[in-house]
C-alpha cells in the first residue's frame, strides 16, 4: 500500500487550510468503511487522509428550527439512536439501519455514503426524498447544494478539491407525510442493492389527495435519480392501488440501468417498478390509507 499522511484537524478552518495547502490527492475520512477498503484494495491512493471526526460541525446531530443538522461524520448508529430522527425523519433511521452491519453502522454515516457517490448508495434516496441539502465549506465560504445535485457520476461529486462536506441539512417533513425506502438484495442483509427505491408522499388532509410526491431510485442509473414522471402522476391524485401502479410503471422511465453481476438491465427496470409500488404502498399504510 502507498504511504499517505494522516491529519486530524480540530477545526473547520484548520481543515480547509490543510486542504488548500496540499498539492496531492487529499481524501476526507469520516467512518472509513469505504475509503479504507478502497485504499487497501488500491482503488484509491490518496497522498493525505484528512480525518474530519475532531471537527465539531462534522460531528453535530441536532434538530433546529431550520431542520435536522447531520454532521458529515455522524454515524448511522447515532442516527438510529436519536429519538427525533426515529420519530420525525423515520426514513433516515430506516436507511441507516440498512447500511452494512452493526460494526459498519458504528463507523459509517450518511455524509460519507453521499460523498462516496455510489449509484447503489442506500443513504441517498432517503435524503433526496426529504429534500436534504448538502452544506459545503471551501476557501470562499459556504455553499449549499441539494443532495439530488451532489453526485455527478459513479464516485464523482460536485465537491472541489479544496472543499469539504460539513453537514446535511434536512428540513422537517410536513404534517400528513410519510416516507419509505426499500432495496432489493438476494441476501437478508449485508449486501449492495441490486436496485432501491425511496418514496415520500405528502397528503392534503382535506381532500386526502397527494400534495407532493418525491421518488428516488438507486442502482438504476449512474447516480441516484428522481422519478419525476412518477411523482407528477401522483400530484393531485388520491393514493389508490391504480395510482400507485401507474407511478410504478412511470418510475421505469427514470431508470437507465446497466447489466452487471448483481442483475440485468431488464431485472433492474422491473425492480424499479416493483420497489416504487411497494414503497408508495408503505407510505399509504403509514398515512392510514387502506388500499
Amino acid at each position: 500500500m502507498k504511504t499517505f499522511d494522516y491529519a486530524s484537524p480540530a477545526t473547520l478552518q484548520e481543515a480547509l487550510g490543510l486542504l488548500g495547502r496540499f498539492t496531492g490527492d487529499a481524501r476526507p475520512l469520516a467512518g472509513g468503511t469505504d475509503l479504507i477498503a478502497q485504499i487497501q484494495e488500491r482503488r484509491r491512493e490518496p497522498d493525505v487522509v484528512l480525518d474530519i471526526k475532531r471537527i465539531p460541525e462534522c460531528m453535530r446531530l441536532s434538530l433546529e428550527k431550520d431542520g435536522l443538522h447531520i454532521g458529515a461524520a455522524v454515524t448511522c448508529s447515532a442516527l438510529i439512536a436519536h429519538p427525533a430522527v426515529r420519530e420525525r425523519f423515520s426514513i433516515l433511521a430506516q436507511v441507516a439501519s440498512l447500511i452494512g452491519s452493526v460494526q459498519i453502522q458504528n463507523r459509517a454515516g450518511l455524509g460519507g455514503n453521499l460523498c462516496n457517490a455510489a449509484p447503489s448508495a442506500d443513504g441517498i434516496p432517503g435524503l433526496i426524498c426529504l429534500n436534504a441539502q448538502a452544506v459545503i465549506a471551501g476557501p470562499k465560504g459556504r455553499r449549499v447544494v441539494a443532495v439530488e445535485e451532489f453526485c455527478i457520476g459513479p464516485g464523482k461529486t460536485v465537491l472541489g478539491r479544496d472543499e469539504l462536506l460539513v453537514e446535511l441539512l434536512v428540513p422537517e417533513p410536513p404534517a400528513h407525510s410519510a416516507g419509505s425506502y426499500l432495496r432489493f438484495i438476494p441476501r437478508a442483509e449485508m449486501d449492495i442493492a441490486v436496485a432501491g427505491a425511496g418514496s415520500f408522499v405528502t397528503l392534503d388532509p382535506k381532500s386526502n389527495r397527494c400534495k407532493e410526491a418525491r421518488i428516488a431510485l438507486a442502482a438504476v442509473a449512474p447516480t441516484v435519480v428522481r422519478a419525476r414522471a412518477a411523482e407528477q402522476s401522483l400530484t393531485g391524485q388520491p393514493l389508490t392501488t391504480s395510482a400507485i401502479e401507474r407511478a410504478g410503471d412511470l418510475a421505469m422511465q427514470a431508470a437507465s440501468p446497466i447489466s452487471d453481476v448483481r442483475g440485468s438491465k431488464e431485472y433492474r427496470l422491473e425492480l424499479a417498478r416493483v420497489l416504487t409500488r411497494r414503497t408508495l404502498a408503505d407510505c399509504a399504510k403509514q398515512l392510514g390509507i387502506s388500499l
Partner: protein
Amino acid sequence: MTKKTITPTINGEPKELLVDQRITLLDMLRDELHLTGAKEGCGNGNCGACTVHLDGLSVDSCLVLAVETTGRSVTTIEGLAKGGALDPVQAAFLNNSGMQCGICTPGFIMATKALLAKKPNPTEHEIRTSLAGNLCRCTGYDKIVRSVLALTKD
C-alpha cells in the same frame, strides 16, 4: 515511511506507540502488540473476524486506521477474561459449542458482548440481525445463536 506517535488505551492499559500512518488497527493489534485474537478474514468489512470495541462500540478493526485510536479505548478478545476467569460470553460459547474451527469466534464474541451491553435480552431474530456482520463458514450459525440465547434471561 511516515510514522506517528499515538496514545490509545488497549484493554484498559494506556499505551504509547510509534506507528506507520497507513496501518490499520487490526495490523497494529496483531503485528505491533501481538494481540492475535482478532483475525483478518476479508479485510473489507464483510466478515467481522476482526471485530473489536472502539470506545465500547463494535467495529471492524480492518477498517480503522491505527492513528485514529489515539486518545480512544480499544478492547479486544484478550481484554475480556479477568484473573483467569472467562467472560460470561466466552463461557457461553464454550458451554454451547458455539464454534468449530475458531477463526470467527473472537469476532462473534466481541459482537455479542456489544449487543448484550445495548440489549440484554435480544430475541433470536435480533441476535441473527445484530450478528449479520460476522461470518462463520463452519457452524451454520445455529450453535452460535444458541450460545447467545443462553445468555438471555427469557
